[in-house]
């Protein structure tokens, strides 16, 4: 296994971000799904060696990040896209990626220039290489973050909401790029986009309140909601969630009545069964 997390807990004051969290991930693309505050970012920061766990053990690429020598070696083999890259607004795109390349020990100037050109081309930012970061749109900044994470073709790619703010064309390009990396290396990404998970991920981990609710393939996740999704003319009492779909029928999730018109669940349905219903238990019903 490329990533092995065992009984890891992390607290920030009175808030428990991860609670005896355990997961093992191999090569390929793994998606972390979960609501805001579920613990996804905390887990990714621990994997990226920028946050130590309070308890439990972590092994990444066979290395123990709690040991200084292993941590250094891991950082050499890691690409990390934080939720907020924090790129310096006064820098140009090329200047910032070059800066990160220097931090990543790309000391040969000509090789570094070629590598910077390569990653900018990969994320389609070559035409913006000399634009100031303050002038970039949110999607472009995300691509800039992805570019620096790809420097040096890392063995492990940790991406915190990499597709946020990307337009449909760029999302397709992002999927193409990440799936290519995931063919022989490990990519762990967090997302709120269930369609990205369906399109990209070999594995999916659903996280809520610092715990693993589900770990399996996207198709297994979708199958876990079999018999819980149905269609009818109007909302029924057993529905935890219901909405009118494009064809005018009402798609419902919950406990179907006898003889209900069951439909094949999607990943989003299964995610809502696992997490959404629980979250909505405490919420006020929406009046339209």
């Amino acid at each position, binding site marked *: 296994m490329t990533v092995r997390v065992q009984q890891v807990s992390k607290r920030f004051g009175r808030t428990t971000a991860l609670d005896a969290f355990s997961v093992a991930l191999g090569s390929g693309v793994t998606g972390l799904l979960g609501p805001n505050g579920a613990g996804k970012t905390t887990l990714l920061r621990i994997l990226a060696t920028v946050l130590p766990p309070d308890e439990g053990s972590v092994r990444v690429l066979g290395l123990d990040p709690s040991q200084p020598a292993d941590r250094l070696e891991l950082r050499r083999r890691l690409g990390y896209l934080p939720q907020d890259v924090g790129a310096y607004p006064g820098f140009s795109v090329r200047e910032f990626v070059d800066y990160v390349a220097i931090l990543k*020990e790309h000391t040969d100037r000509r090789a570094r220039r070629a590598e910077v050109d390569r990653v900018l081309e990969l994320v389609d930012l070559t035409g913006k290489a000399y634009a100031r970061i303050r002038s970039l749109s949110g999607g472009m900044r995300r691509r800039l973050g992805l570019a620096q994470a790809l420097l040096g073709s890392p063995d492990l790619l940790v991406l915190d909401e990499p597709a946020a703010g990307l337009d449909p064309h760029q999302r397709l390009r992002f999927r193409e790029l990440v799936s290519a990396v995931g063919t022989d290396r490990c990519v762990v990404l967090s997302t709120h986009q269930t369609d990205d998970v369906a399109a990209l991920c070999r594995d999916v981990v659903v996280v809520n309140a610092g715990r693993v609710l589900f770990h399996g393939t996207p198709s297994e996740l979708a199958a876990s909601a079999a018999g819980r999704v149905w269609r009818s003319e109007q909302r029924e009492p057993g529905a935890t969630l219901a909405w009118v779909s494009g064809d005018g029928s009402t798609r419902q999730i919950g406990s179907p009545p006898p003889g209900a018109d069951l439909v094949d669940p999607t990943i989003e349905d299964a995610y809502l069964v696992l997490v959404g219903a629980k979250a909505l238990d405490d919420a006020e019903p929406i009046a339209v």
Partner: protein
Amino acid sequence: MTPRTVWHPDATALQAYVDDEAGAALAASTEAHLLACHTCRLALVPAVTPTRLALVRADLDDRLDAAERPWVERCLRRLGLGEADARVLLAAPSMRRAWWLAVGLALSLGLVAAGQDPAQADALLVFAPLLPVVATAASYAPRFDTALALTAATPYPTMRLLLLRAGAVAVASTALAVVAASALPMGLAGTVSWLLPAVALIVAVLALSTWVDAGVAAGICSAGWLTAVWTAGYGRARPLDPLAVYDVSGQLASIALLGVAVVVLVRHRHRLDPGSPA
């Protein structure tokens, strides 16, 4: 453009020019001619291999890159600092903020000193050690360096980054404070008496940063310093003598603080790495 001469380099001369084997005179003539003669430029194309072209391009890029770097970075490189260290030192906006902060405070202190009022001069000396303390904290506090999380995930050592930035800002702000303090009428001894406490406070900020945020560390050190000034001043004379803290016992206390801070910093330096277990 039409060439001003009827001379054209032949294929052998062009090849020698491309291979850097033409000799100074022929090379200069060929180069001048090529600038003006489109026909000869076309004749040159087959003689230049893609490898040679890539080398020329790379060399040109190197020169352009070097020219693009800020003059401060070029100076640091000439002083022997490595490229990574120079870039890390100057990259963060926090460095610029810290320096502007230092310059602004030094100018303010200078203006106070310009009044030549003994009370204001005393105040200047009391607050002088706090200038490098605040500027040092501002140079690496996470709230000022937005890309610090990203930096922490790279192999570049966090301890080195902090020491480089803290050292550079401390030296610059101390120099500014010396300039401001030199405007005072109390002579060299009075002017430099605050330097040792300032160095001790800077290292104390770094040592405290192994436990708390850099801004909090600077706040604790500043509060501690003002308490020391108050305690020493009232212990010796009434009314308050704000400069009593700079006497011999104050200097010895600074040495003791410096020693303790160095030991703490060395022993707990691993805590400056955000990925290190507590």
